[in-house]
């Protein structure tokens, strides 16, 4: 059993598990942090961004004026943003049988994997994962396609040039594997390969393994997976949460008794408590609005935004900010808000029960009804005429490199009254803000990551007790910025197996058993004999049929009666010759009685030597050795076949025959 690690990112995993005869990809997360190296894509012409000077090395030897621009003291690539794909060279992706998706954030690389690689398998995901994942992909494609770039920059990736570039471009890894965004047709094609599953549904893969999604409590439809055969169990935990937010709570019981637990997707900000951050978010928002400023929240169009809106729904009235409008701007804003209301069965109990009242599970429906929350596909169109300040704008993309957020950064960045509040933990906010410097607007970093923290995961692992844990390397040491915080790492016994991008791990357990079915007619013919109390054995002569990874023992077909004709039969059609099997022996040869028997049979000079496994009897006159061991008896007797046979018969007297 092997694990191929195609991504080193702890929360955007992409691993391939080879288990029995199946090849299973676990998630295919897309690392979008590469986009931070690129210039923002402004939705409206930005004189500032269009007049940036090109980059030329100090000695003038390298001139990449068209590809790289200097902005706010840093160098950015002036091209369509690119993303870092999972490793494609580590194994042949066409051999992947299935892809298991755990949540909509971990499927964004799907089109890169399923298209143009020869992939012919199936993707398994829950319905909300598929639908919201589709929205996120659609949004990403729209963001990119709305602002096309004529030229793609690639010269800077040349190794000899890249090493001469200023940081952080110089240090960017695997730049040749970076790709621009996929197209909508690729998204549609990739998603057509998805087969929907429900929580606890058992899906059989080629008869070899069963895979089961379990609720992970992180987002709508998010799941952990159990991959098991009859005798082995692997659990895949990715992006789970124990907090009470909108999704169904995490199912923990079924993760017990795993041989291996692959643990990914812990919180990216272990020191930030989501409740505290939510408080910070609200107080900063309220302070800005009271001061007459606007609040910009760069966020994904699904996920934490539902909780933020719910929290603000309660907070705004109590903070006397009831009349402040919220705007949610995204090409998929409408669908996202509506989808969240229809996936009732995937929500927490509290929200599920609202549906029966009937009431919409999320209060943003009321915000929309009362015109407090308005959503628009883009800043163009109705928004520009209805826009009223001060306001709160939720829009993407959190990297601040593309999407409508770029426009708001240009618009509001110059005023100290406004505030940008970062709630998504995926990007360093300082890097995200780099091309907008100098910035007068206030910046607040309130990353809300509801995924498991180290304290919760230690408790969880104590409960479910897996034999081995496999996790990304960063989880095995404290965060680099807080090297003394030993509480911010996994300390387990045995220590977890750590992986990084391109690791291939041999998982530390050997398969020992395989289940074989015995047909009833064959079972009837067995004659068990008891070898010790409670244990009976019988010999079986049968034909083993292996089909679809299932093994069946069938009775041996009887030889066909000899046909009356004297026609010669074709050799191929002859049934296999069935020989009477040699009897199987069981039991042990007791030393003293055996010596007595030897004595009775005239063998007098026996030297007994005790060994670690039993005894060695040296028949000195005959120069024969008899090794009596727990699981075997050997008679070493050269060139005296009658004696060997005689001795064998003496040994056999003490053993049971089956």
């Amino acid at each position: 059993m092997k694990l191929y690690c195609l991504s080193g990112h702890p929360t955007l995993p992409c691993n391939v598990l080879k288990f029995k005869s199946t090849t299973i990809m676990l998630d295919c997360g897309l690392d979008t942090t590469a986009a931070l190296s690129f210039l923002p894509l402004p939705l409206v012409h930005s004189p500032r961004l269009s007049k940036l000077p090109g980059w030329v090395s100090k000695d003038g030897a390298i001139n990449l004026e068209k590809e790289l621009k200097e902005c706010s003291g840093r160098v950015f690539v002036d091209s369509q943003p690119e993303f870092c794909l999972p490793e494609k060279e580590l194994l042949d992706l066409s051999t992947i049988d299935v892809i298991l998706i755990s949540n909509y954030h971990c499927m964004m690389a799907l089109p890169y994997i399923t298209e143009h690689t020869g992939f012919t398998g199936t993707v398994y995901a829950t319905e909300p994962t598929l639908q919201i994942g589709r929205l996120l992909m659609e949004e990403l494609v729209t963001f990119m396609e709305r602002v096309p770039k004529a030229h793609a920059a690639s010269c800077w990736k040349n190794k000899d040039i890249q090493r001469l570039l200023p940081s952080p471009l110089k240090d960017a890894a695997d730049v040749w594997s970076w790709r621009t965004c996929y197209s909508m047709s690729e998204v549609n094609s990739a998603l057509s390969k998805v087969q929907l599953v429900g929580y606890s549904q058992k899906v059989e893969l080629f008869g070899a393994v069963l895979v089961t999604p379990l609720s992970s409590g992180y987002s709508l439809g998010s799941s952990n997976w159990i991959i098991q055969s009859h005798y082995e169990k692997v659990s895949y935990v990715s992006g789970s949460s124990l907090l009470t937010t909108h999704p169904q709570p995490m199912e923990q019981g079924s993760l017990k008794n795993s041989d291996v637990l692959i643990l990914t997707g812990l919180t990216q900000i272990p020191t930030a408590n989501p409740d505290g951050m939510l408080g910070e978010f609200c107080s900063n928002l309220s302070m800005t609005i009271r001061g007459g400023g606007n609040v910009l929240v760069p966020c994904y169009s699904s996920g934490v935004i539902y909780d933020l809106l719910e929290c603000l729904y309660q907070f705004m009235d109590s903070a006397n900010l009831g009349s402040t409008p919220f705007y949610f701007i995204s090409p998929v804003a409408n669908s996202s808000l509506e989808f969240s209301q229809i996936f009732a069965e995937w929500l927490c109990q509290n929200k599920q029960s609202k549906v029966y009242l009937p009431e919409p599970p999320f209060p943003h429906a009321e915000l929309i009804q009362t015109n407090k929350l308005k959503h628009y596909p883009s800043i163009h169109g109705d928004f520009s005429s209805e826009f009223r300040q001060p306001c709160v704008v939720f829009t993407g993309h959190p990297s601040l490199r593309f999407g409508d957020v770029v426009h708001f950064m240009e618009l509001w960045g110059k005023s100290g009254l406004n505030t940008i509040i970062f709630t998504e933990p995926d990007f360093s906010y300082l890097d995200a803000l780099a091309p907008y410097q100098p910035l007068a607007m206030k910046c607040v970093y309130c990353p809300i990551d509801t995924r498991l923290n180290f304290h919760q995961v230690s408790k969880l692992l104590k409960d479910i007790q897996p034999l081995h844990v496999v996790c990304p390397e960063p989880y095995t040491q404290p965060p680099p910025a807080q090297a003394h915080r030993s509480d911010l790492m996994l300390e387990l016994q045995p220590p977890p197996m750590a992986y990084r991008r391109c690791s291939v791990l041999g998982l530390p357990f050997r398969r020992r058993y395989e289940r074989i079915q015995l047909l009833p007619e064959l079972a009837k013919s067995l004659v068990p004999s008891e070898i010790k109390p409670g244990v009976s054995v019988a010999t079986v002569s049968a034909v083993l049929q292996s089909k679809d990874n299932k093994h069946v023992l069938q009775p041996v077909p009887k030889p066909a009666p000899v046909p009356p004709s004297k026609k010669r039969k074709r050799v191929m059609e002859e049934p296999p010759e069935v020989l009477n099997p040699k009897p199987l022996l069981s039991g042990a040869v007791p030393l003293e009685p055996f010596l007595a028997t030897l004595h009775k049979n005239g063998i007098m000079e026996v030297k007994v030597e005790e060994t670690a496994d039993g005894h060695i009897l040296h028949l000195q006159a005959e120069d024969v050795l008899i090794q009596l061991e727990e699981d075997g008896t050997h008679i070493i007797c050269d060139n005296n076949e009658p004696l060997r046979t005689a001795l064998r018969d003496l040994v056999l007297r003490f053993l049971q025959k089956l």
Partner: protein
Amino acid sequence: MDSDCLSLLPAVCLVLADPKQSPPDDTSLEKLLDWFKEMHSQSNEQVLLQHQPCFKEFISSVCTSKTTDPAILSFTLKLTGLLACTKQGFHLLEVGGLLVCVFEREAWFVCDLWEDASVRSGWLQGLLNMLKHRQALDFICGNGLLKVILQLQNDGSLFVACLANQLLVHILNFLTSSNMTNGSDAVESRESSLSPDWVSVSSEIMNGVVEALSSDDHPRVLQGLRLLSSVPSQCGEPIRSTLWKDVLVPLEVLINRGSESLTQPLMTVLQAAVRTPLLGQSEYKVEELLEAMLGSGNKNESFQCAALTIKLEKCPEGLKRKAIDIVLLPLQCVSAQSQDTAEKMNLALKEQLSQKASCISHLMQSLSSLEELAYTKYQFEGISIHSVTSSVVLLLRICSGHYPSSLIQNNASTHLIGCCKVQRCGLDTLGALSVYEENMNIRKDIFGVLLDYLKSPDSHATVLKKTYQATVSWIAVCSPFPDLLQFISHDLFPVLKKRMCDLRWEVRDSTLEFITQLTVALNGNSGFIEALHTSGMVSILLSSLADSEGYVRASAVAVVGEAVDSFLHHTVLVSKSNLLEEALKQMMTILSQDTEGFPRRAVVKAFTSWLKGSHLVTAVHPFLSSVLSLGCNDFDWEVKMHTLELAEVLMEKTLTCCPYAVQNFGSSEKELMQALSKLKEFGLFDLLFNSLFDCDRPVCAKGRWEF
């Protein structure tokens, strides 16, 4: 009424003695006893028993009945004790042999009743009630009841055991009281020696205590210690010193054995002894025993003992110093920054600190002891207060997860990150440490950690409250330093602005309270007042007046009141702002429309405080009649009370020609008439007349008083 009740007494006794009737519940029996007690104390001593023969009949019938209920028997025992507490009563009951019949359990017709704890408890209570004169003690000793009492000290029922202990202490105390010494030489005899008649009684009890302390039976030892801890405070000489001498050996054995579960009771005994002259006399070894309790500071109980020792009122200085050394060890160990310091810590302590529960408990003991010492401004010797304060600061940093990497790694930090208990206690201690001037040069560190707590999104509301309290203490003592204003306006105000918008109303409330305290503490500081009014704080304060939570609105009213007051000291600022108008407008809205009482009370209080000052008198005058009328008609009685207080201040201010004021005695009648007509214009008389007929008694009383 009592005579009516007394006439019913025979019937009541009959009902109570009737075994066919189900007994009333304990509460009514207790109430009946209370009434008897009251009757007994009011009436001439023998009246009750003499005029109510039904009592004797009742007692006799209960004792001779074969079907007495335990509750009735217990009641009877207590009642008999009560009736026999006077010599006459005792005599009347003894004559007929009734007393023996009641307290000699062999005389009872139903012996099984003794098994009932309520009966045993009643028996002891009866004796306790009775033991007010020498005859009662004669009765107890003469009938061998003392043995039973000693046995009951180890009773399975805690109540019974406790009562037995109480009775034994009472007997010991009684032996040295004036009741036993008859007459004027009482004091002398008490001081010198015990009458030989009673030596055997006291030695029987004392032997019982010594036996209990030497016993292997833990509950018995505990009871012995409990009795012993009551003796020094309740009994006089020579009982106190004799008993102490007797128990010294077993006590030493117990202390040296070092059982953790006995630490607290042993310390209680020693605490009791410390408060008596036993402490000063070397033969009684009180100090030695305390020192033995402290041990070398490596046992779990040493820390508890040290913490208790520090609390002792008359603790010898040497002992106190040793206790301080011990109690501070956990704090120093957790915040050790050098390997040297860490190595000095003993292994046992390290082990204890690696376990969460003991780590937190030891640190809490360290911190609260330090806080206690700081309150008395204790002058440490051999320990630098500077380093102790730095340790507290470091501990607070550990608790918030922001500690320096130079800290020696130990498991303790893992237990402490986010631990609210230690955070709260640490902040209290840090606040208390502000009394030491030596700490002024580390104020930057201190304000730094306080600011971190105020900023941290994870700070619990109660932790924030404690942080505010500590900050106020430090700001108050640091007010002469010029860098304080810089800290307040650049660091503190931005955090406070955010906290005033906090999601939790408790935090918003405590933030506003803090700003009020800050404004009061720095009222004379013009720089502060200018910073308060130019930093944009005021607009947030004003918007807090419309908070959704009533308590927050009330605190906002208080802080706006203070801000307005401070603001008017600065004429430069006044011309630039419309704060007063805005505040008055919003406050009047609150008083007339707010649905909750707290904010309305706060508004009236703000007006009272403004009126008491000199700056605002003319500015608030136009609003006074509305305030008085709204306050007078408020549904909340406390608003009315505060309005009457406002009226009182108004009268003081207006009636400068009050005829009752001696200094103004010569003022003209005309001036008085003008003042009165002014008060009438304010509607003050309407308020006072209305309050006279108010349905709430305190309002009426206050109104009457003001008239």
